[in-house]
């Protein structure tokens, strides 16, 4: 056990810090979940790409820096320290990118990964359907083979980023006689294809980050399928593993929130309850615990280990921590918590954050599903 950074790791931190200080926008961008803010965030993705900071863990051949996980953590720490914007490219970086690297052909890698790394194409998820949420194997959207094309019909929903993104990736039923997780295929398609209708869904905060996608006989070339026909479920499970695994939510994000929460407490100390004070201290301890655990898992993976169902522990921990920290902030703000914009014109980021934190225990596999996974796969309770 050695919890010191090497001189090389410290030098890397200094390099990231210098770049972030020079490039992070001085004024916060508008929300990622509205048209104007989305465009600003895509512009930021291209700025990141220009410095080669877009996909730091990817191989250099695809526009990355081939960083190990410890350096990825350092990068994230500096990213959040610099208050850099949220990642519009999240779906590409952490979900589709690793999936294509693992399952894609060389042709697909060349075709999709480089534009993704450059921030040229933004990706939306197309997993859930109205009757296939937690029960994803109930997918009904069809992809019927017609020569060298699939003809896709059906409906997807809760598609993150779909309101503004360029392409989507998801699961479609290619074997019409199949049931459950058999007969599904993993297919990519442009959202401006003829027959695609995107209907933005207005979210809890009033903006439109996700959307419904309707497919009416959309023709998609067979070469847009990742891995074999009917192998989509395994590919999707790997993708879901990336999502709730180590990288979806880096500890730095929550440590930054915990620090802001301590600062908020100091401003409101005069009227804060003892319970709020304890919750603030607890926020720091839990964010710290999440960081320590991530360093431990990263060290293990780097030494050849792997993360399996343990990822579900992470997902529960960070999502419940995030909600708890924002709930505490709302309590500290008291009557001002309901304001969308404070009297000085500043946006009430705690309110926005609280609303967003309520989605954490739901997306990327609800925490109920995660608890089932922990009980069955880690503790060995019967299915």
């Amino acid at each position, binding site marked *: 056990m050695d919890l010191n950074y090497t001189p090389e790791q410290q030098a890397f931190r200094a390099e990231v810090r210098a770049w972030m200080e020079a490039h992070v926008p001085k004024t916060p961008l508008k929300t990622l979940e509205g048209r104007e803010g989305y465009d600003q965030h895509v512009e930021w993705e291209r700025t990141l790409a220009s410095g080669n900071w877009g996909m730091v863990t990817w191989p250099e051949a695809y526009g990355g820096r081939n960083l190990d996980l410890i350096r990825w953590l350092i990068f994230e720490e500096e990213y959040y320290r610099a208050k850099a914007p949220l990642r519009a490219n999240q779906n590409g970086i952490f979900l589709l990118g690793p999936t294509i690297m693992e399952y894609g052909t060389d042709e697909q890698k060349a075709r999709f990964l480089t534009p993704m790394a450059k921030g040229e194409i933004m990706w939306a998820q197309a997993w859930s359907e109205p009757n296939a949420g937690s029960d994803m194997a109930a997918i009904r959207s069809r992809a019927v083979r017609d020569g060298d094309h699939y003809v896709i019909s059906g409906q997807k929903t809760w598609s993150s980023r779909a309101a503004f993104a360029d392409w989507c990736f998801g699961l479609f039923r290619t074997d019409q006689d199949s049931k459950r997780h058999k007969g599904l295929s993993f297919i990519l398609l442009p959202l401006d294809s003829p027959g695609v209708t995107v209907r933005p869904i207005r979210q809890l905060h009033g903006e439109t980050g996700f959307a419904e996608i309707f497919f009416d006989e959309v023709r998609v070339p067979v070469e847009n399928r990742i891995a074999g026909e009917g192998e989509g479920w395994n590919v999707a499970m790997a993708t879901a593993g990336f999502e709730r695994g180590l990288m979806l939510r880096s500890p730095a994000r929550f440590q930054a929130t915990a620090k802001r929460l301590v600062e908020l407490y100091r401003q409101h100390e005069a009227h804060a309850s003892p319970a709020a004070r304890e919750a603030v201290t607890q926020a720091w301890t839990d964010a710290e*615990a999440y960081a*320590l655990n991530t360093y431990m898992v990263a060290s293990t993976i780097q030494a050849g280990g792997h993360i399996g169902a343990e990822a579900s522990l992470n997902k529960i921990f960070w999502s419940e921590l995030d909600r708890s920290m924002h709930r505490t902030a709302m309590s500290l703000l008291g009557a001002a918590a309901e304001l969308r914009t404070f009297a000085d014109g500043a946006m009430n980021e705690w309110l926005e954050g609280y609303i967003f934190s309520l989605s954490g225990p739901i997306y990327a596999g609800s925490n109920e599903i995660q608890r089932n996974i922990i009980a069955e796969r880690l503790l060995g309770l019967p299915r």
Partner: protein
Amino acid sequence: MDFRFTEDQITLRDSVREYLEGTHTPELLRKLDEHGNRDDGVWNGLVEMGLAGLLVPEDQGGLGMGLIEATLIAVELGRANVSEPIVDTAFVAAPWLAAKGQTDRLGDIAGGALKVALAHDVNPWVADLDQAGAVISHGKLADVAASPVALDSVDPLRRLSARGDLGGGDPLLLDLAALMAAAQLVGAADRMLALAVDYAKQREQFGQPIGSFQAVKHHAASVAVKVEFAKPVLWRAAYALQNGHARGSVHISHAKLAATDAAIFAAETAIQIHGAMGYTYEVDLHFWMKRAWALAGAWGDRAFHLKRIDDAVIGGGIDLGPDRTFASEMIHA
């Protein structure tokens, strides 16, 4: 940066775990409970394993290991619910005496001939004083005067004496003992979860094991989350104390807090999963539950450690933020 144990550390832990699983069984706990709660054979077995001298330097008859190894083993002692004063003697008194340069009795500790009790103002009592050959009190190793067991702990395997004039406020003694209490609490929490899971696999209602019901699964999963996230905090605290970091006390308080919360939550959930059986003396669970209640208050209760963290976090004693996780390591370097 490498947050992992060495293979030697894992091997050592596994061998202790295996030994305790084979010898320190629930049947033994019942026997101890019925017959005055101590058995020389248990102590002698731990000494033969080398545990008494684990932290004693090699030139004084010990194994010369460090607090990381001791913490790993203290978790195992908590998992097995060992009641002998091995943790207090070997993992707290020995490193404390070595740090203070009071080395003349370390050989006796390593050989298993001397059991040491610990007196500190943070505790209103002293554990195992009745069988100790010496006690750490007011900054030195002192002889033990007559010390009848005077206080009745809820834990049937724990023996407490009144503190009297013994005590003192030594900060290193507190940190070492709080770290080791946290380790035993983590081990106890792990074991209580395992007991509950075993029971849920066996007990059938509505024609199936109760562990197949989501209501039961989710209880167990929530405990697993709490326990697993206490562990890295514990390891880090051991590392910080081992390396003499300035922020070590905050990390130890964090470990004690996280371990206490995990163990109490594990206890309450495990009894719920056991149903009415959990409320009986017949089921093994109660030994660990009662140990957890006892250790939760020992060496600084929840409020004590929360305040130490609070003073640092809200009071500004430590740096906050995403780039400061290993700040004390950076200062140390």
